[in-house]
């Protein structure tokens, strides 16, 4: 029984074969893939060896690559595939596509492991093709190691050819160029190939990558002379085009690549989510070996490191690790190993030690070489972490996820009821939301108002934003004013120590000035003091962190968010200090009004007396009657105004809404509201 899920899906005009949900071929364009894999190796081997060829196919149990070899008259072929399920399908369902290649009398089929086969047999072949599934586990990756390529090389006749299916050079550039390096290290001189296969592209696999390699260097002239008679897709022009690879992929992949000595090396690179290139950009021509050598020699190591597209939280977590590691101990160990280093690298480590204090102050530009060693260390840590494939949640891609969503709480300071910072609300360019209790954000209110003491005319009107919540009903504005919501009504109170000014959110001029509530002012001052301390603590943590992390803001959205948050917290701290100073200037007028216990409070400075009379407490403590339902009252009457009328109505409506069935106050409020 197959250990894999094999599936054939009917597609318009053909059939598509999947292993474990991953497309292996689509009959409509399989020729693109299999001709590119088989024919250049076959044609070059024929040109070099000028004799009937003997071929080995590793993997490729569907028989489609084998078909190409048989069609062009190989003398003998062996095919090794470990999946008996695939071999059975090749003989049955795919025989219409592969022409019954597995049952050709020139073919010997082995159902078994390719590594074991190579170790346990000894004949030589003129060409070998490797057509394995995408390497997504350690077993799959073991077919891309140096030792595997060395054992393939050992089975090639002198001047023999090896062609292999690799990974996408665009989606997995580091893995692709690691295969390149690994082939080279096994002394198989590689030429990379890039193919656009419509069915692969439509599955999001990107352009596909292959290699043509040989123990004897492949000359440019040999490639130029290749002809592919009878091919349905592979023309000389198409082959020349396939030798052109995207420079962006090389730049992104090569610095991160290495020789695959263990299967885990490749798995580690595959597990990293990499840049998905859009498909454009400059192409490098690998049919010209001198130009390609020049290009590869010009690809720097650490200097132009691009980060694999790990999620932002990954970058954040690694930064955190670097921040807390014991640098003295580490630098001492680095210098102990310095003798092993080439001169330039040794110099860079010395620069790192010398510049570390500067780095920690954030004064070093991101092009500095000391910083680049630092960035390389981050890369090492990425590898260390990705090398272990069982990380929680690391199995999945975070498709389209942007930063900030972290399942770990790695914070510089604890977020609690006293410190609301470290929240996405504060991490944008401007604070446009207010964070309410329980972490609920809501759009910050914009207000226009004439502040106490401001000059008359338009110049005295402030435009302001209530951007920091002390509680769900009290806010400090950007301009350092304290505001209270009046319940859910469209009114605000602008609070100062000597007065509470009532504002309609839509009108700049105060509707009334109440006697201030000293208890509310004291509570607000206490809250401000706590938040100023929390802001100090947060800024202190951020200043240490950003001192050295700021250069990473170029490629880390988390660091940019940190930088914004630090700026915004500093601004909020300024507003809190201004508001606190304003509240401490001046005091409530002497002669604090005594409010009789039986009066029912409707809002700050507004009372309902004897269920009928509305009383306002003026700025100096004087009581006024507002003629709401009745003309007169026990206190001097305020002039009737549309603004105050609406304000009292809003207060009464809100109070009414808070009553319950059978509540005696409901009748009182409703009587007052009747006709309004």
């Amino acid at each position, binding site marked *: 029984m197959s250990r*894999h899920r094999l599936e054939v899906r009917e597609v318009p005009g053909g059939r598509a074969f999947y292993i474990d949900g991953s497309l292996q071929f689509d009959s409509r364009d399989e020729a693109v893939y299999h001709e590119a894999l088989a024919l250049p190796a076959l044609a070059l081997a024929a040109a070099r060896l000028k004799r009937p060829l003997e071929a080995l196919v590793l993997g490729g149990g569907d028989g489609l690559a084998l078909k190409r070899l048989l069609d062009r008259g190989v003398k003998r072929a062996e095919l090794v595939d470990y999946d008996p399920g695939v071999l059975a399908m090749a003989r049955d369902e795919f025989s219409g596509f592969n022409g019954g290649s597995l049952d050709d009398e020139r073919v010997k089929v082995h159902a078994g492991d390719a590594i074991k086969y190579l170790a346990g047999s000894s004949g030589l072949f003129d060409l070998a093709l490797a057509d394995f599934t995408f390497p997504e*586990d350690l077993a799959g990756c073991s077919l891309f190691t140096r030792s595997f390529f060395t054992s393939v090389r050992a089975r090639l006749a002198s001047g023999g050819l090896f062609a292999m299916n690799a990974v996408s050079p665009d989606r997995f550039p580091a893995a692709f160029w690691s295969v390149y390096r690994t082939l080279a290290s096994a002394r198989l001189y*590689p*030429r990379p190939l890039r193919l656009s296969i419509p069915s692969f592209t439509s599955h999001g696999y990107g352009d596909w990558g292959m290699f043509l390699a040989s123990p004897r260097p492949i000359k440019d002239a040999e490639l130029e002379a290749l002809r592919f008679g009878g091919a349905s897709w592979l023309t000389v022009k198409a082959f020349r085009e396939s030798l052109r690879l995207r420079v962006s992929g090389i730049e992104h992949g090569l610095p991160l690549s290495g020789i695959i000595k263990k299967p885990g090396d490749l798995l580690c690179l595959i597990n990293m989510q990499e840049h998905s290139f859009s498909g454009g950009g400059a192409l490098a021509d690998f049919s010209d070996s001198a130009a390609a050598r020049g290009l590869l020699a010009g*690809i720097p190591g650490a200097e132009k490191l691009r980060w694999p597209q790990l999620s932002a939280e990954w970058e954040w977590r690694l930064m955190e690790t670097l921040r807390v590691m014991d640098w003295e101990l*580490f630098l001492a160990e680095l210098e102990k190993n310095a003798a092993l*280093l080439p001169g330039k690298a040794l110099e860079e480590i010395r620069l790192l030690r010398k510049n570390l204090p500067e780095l920690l102050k954030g004064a070093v530009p991101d092009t500095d070489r000391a910083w680049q060693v630092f960035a390389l260390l981050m890369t090492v840590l990425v*590898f260390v972490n990705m090398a272990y494939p069982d990380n929680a949640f690391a199995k999945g891609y975070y498709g389209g996820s942007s930063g900030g969503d972290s*399942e*770990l709480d790695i914070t510089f300071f604890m977020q609690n009821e006293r410190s609301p910072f470290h929240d996405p609300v504060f991490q944008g360019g401007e604070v446009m939301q207010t964070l309410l209790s329980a972490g609920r954000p809501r759009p910050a209110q914009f207000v226009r108002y004439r502040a106490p003491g401001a000059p008359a005319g338009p110049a005295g009107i402030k435009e302001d934003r209530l951007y920091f919540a002390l509680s769900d009903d009290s806010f400090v504005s950007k301009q350092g004013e304290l505001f209270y919501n009046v319940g859910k009504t469209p009114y605000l109170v602008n609070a100062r120590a000597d007065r509470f000014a009532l504002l309609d959110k839509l009108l700049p001029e105060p509707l009334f000035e109440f006697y201030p509530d000293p208890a509310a002012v004291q509570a607000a001052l206490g809250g401000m003091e706590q938040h100023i301390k929390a802001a100090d603590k947060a800024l202190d943590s951020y200043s240490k962190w950003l001192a050295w992390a700021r250069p990473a803001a170029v490629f880390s959205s988390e660091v940019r968010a940190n930088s914004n948050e630090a700026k915004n917290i500093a601004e909020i701290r300024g507003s809190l200090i201004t508001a606190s100073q304003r509240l401490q200037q001046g005091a409530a007028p002497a002669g604090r009004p005594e409010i009789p216990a039986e009066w029912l409070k409707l809002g700050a400075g507004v009372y309902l007396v004897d269920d009928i009379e509305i009383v306002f407490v003026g700025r100096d403590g004087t009581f006024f009657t507002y003629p709401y339902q009745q003309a007169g009252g026990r206190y001097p009457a305020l002039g009737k105004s549309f603004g105050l009328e609406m304000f009292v109505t809003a207060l009464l409506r809100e109070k009414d809404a808070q009553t319950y069935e059978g509540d005696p106050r409901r009748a009182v409020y409703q009587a007052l509201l009747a006709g309004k």
Partner: protein
Amino acid sequence: MKITSLKKEHFKLWNDLAACSEGSGFMQSWEWSEFKEAEGAKVERLGIFDGGKLIAGAIVYRVETTLGVSPLAMPHGPVLPWNDPGKAEACFSLLKEKLAAMAERTGSPVARFEPFIFGRPAFLGAALRAPVDLVPTPTLMVELDKDDAGLLATMTQKGRYNVRLAGRRGVEVASSASNDLTGDFHELFDLTCSRHAFHGEPVGFFTRLMEALGPAGLARTYLASYQGMPAAAAVAVFFGGRATYLYGGTSPFLRNTMASYAMHWRIMRDARDKGLKLYDLYGIAPSDKPRHPYAKFSAFKARFGGTLVKTIGAQDIYFYPQLAKTLVSRLSAGVKGAA
């Protein structure tokens, strides 16, 4: 006390110890270590003996690479006598020495451990919070020592309703400790992964998992079907006092059958009947992160009424000599290879 490598003959002794240690879990079971070993991980099983009695230890996992050397990973470990801090500290100190020696041998620059404990004992010392966890935390944990009515009562109203609705609609749940249902499971798992753009393991992984853990009763595959059509499937692991929902998948076409509710309801009851005390829903996204990639799964999990549990998370001990060597080797690696 002495620390030594455990041999096959210690299998039962170790499993008994790991199973009754509260800070441990299935990833410290001997069977899981054999499974991971077969998957290609390097495994070392360390035991700490006190007067000839096995009292602590750790199963240490490592994936050999040369680009970056994997951490010496101890998910759900180490197994220490956490209730006896003095002894736990002595054991941890022995273990650290052994890990440092292993690091020197393997080149690993970091040891990563993640016991299932909720407070960080002082003796963990300079260990740093790891950039990534080995086991999802926080998670939701459902207490199982209740009868059916009790279990239902701990669910949310919607959860309860859906369990009953699935029953009324005739959803049937089958389970297997062998590979009978692995193919069906993987179909649904794969569908779910594609839907959410996650990368899922191939079917071979699950076949091997069931082969390694199934016969010992440590793992079962569950399949909920509606009128014979697979609607939801899961792999659950049972070890120590906890059952764990490790992998799952659903059919988008049969969502209204509420088959996943019936399936988890069955897993919970199976676990309880095996004498297990807790059902670990294996990770939950923070409730204040509605855009978290796992937010939708988490909302579903929350309906089973578990308690939010947050362990100390993965902790790292750095071996600076090895880290320096790894960096130096990367610095020395020039661009080689020729066209």
